[in-house]
């Protein structure tokens, strides 16, 4: 911990760093941007992909082959 600077050095109201109001605004925008995408749910593309791989997996296991790494 540094003790060299007294905390009162910062001018009140306008410090060089983080204003709480700005910080909450940034947090809000960040989540808004993120949640816009989250709300789109699972595109068919990915649901299909998992289903496909799932049945491949089942087929592989029935055939008795060990699953291959990195197949696509």
């Amino acid at each position, binding site marked *: 911990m540094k003790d060299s600077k007294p905390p009162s050095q910062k001018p009140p109201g*306008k410090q060089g760093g983080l204003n709480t109001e700005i910080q909450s605004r*940034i947090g809000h925008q960040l*989540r808004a941007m993120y949640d816009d995408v989250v709300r*789109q749910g699972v595109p068919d593309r990915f649901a299909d992909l998992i289903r496909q791989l799932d049945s491949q997996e089942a087929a592989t296991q029935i055939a008795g082959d060990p699953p291959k790494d990195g197949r696509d």
Partner: protein
Amino acid sequence: MPLTDSLRDDILATVPSLRAFAISLSGNADRADDLVQETLLRALAHIDSFQPGSNLPAWLFTILRNLFRSDYRKRRREVEDADGSYAKTLKSQPAQSAHLEFEEFRGALEKLPQDQREALILVGASGFSYEDAAAICGCAVGTIKSRVNRARSKLSALLYVDGAEDFGPDNTIRAVIGGGGG
């Protein structure tokens, strides 16, 4: 562990936030979906290495983040999302002023160093704890905390240059007009 039905459902349930993370990292919707696809393929190929009961989203995010990193090193961001292909992925277009502000925010986010951007997104948007974010990024908890703090100060400097007193729509538009070069 083997891919059980419930594990498969859990993976699918993580897809929306994986996409959001990928878009925030790459700034490009198409590339983000490719990243997610690759993540799913890799996760399923290595599903044996997933520890039952451990944090599945964190595991998937780690895979995606590492893929993005290696991809990034290779291609060095040759594709910028100049025409806003991200915005086209939104179901409802936001109102004009909100849209401007939104674009400005995204632009500022892209200017952050990658380390800081991913830390901020993981903690501030994905809702991971500092500990989980540190595990995902393979660094110390203190490192994540300082990255998040630096990301926040840099964003506020980029977005609200004039400081605290009067930010708002007017200020935002002034910033867009005045500082839109890049």
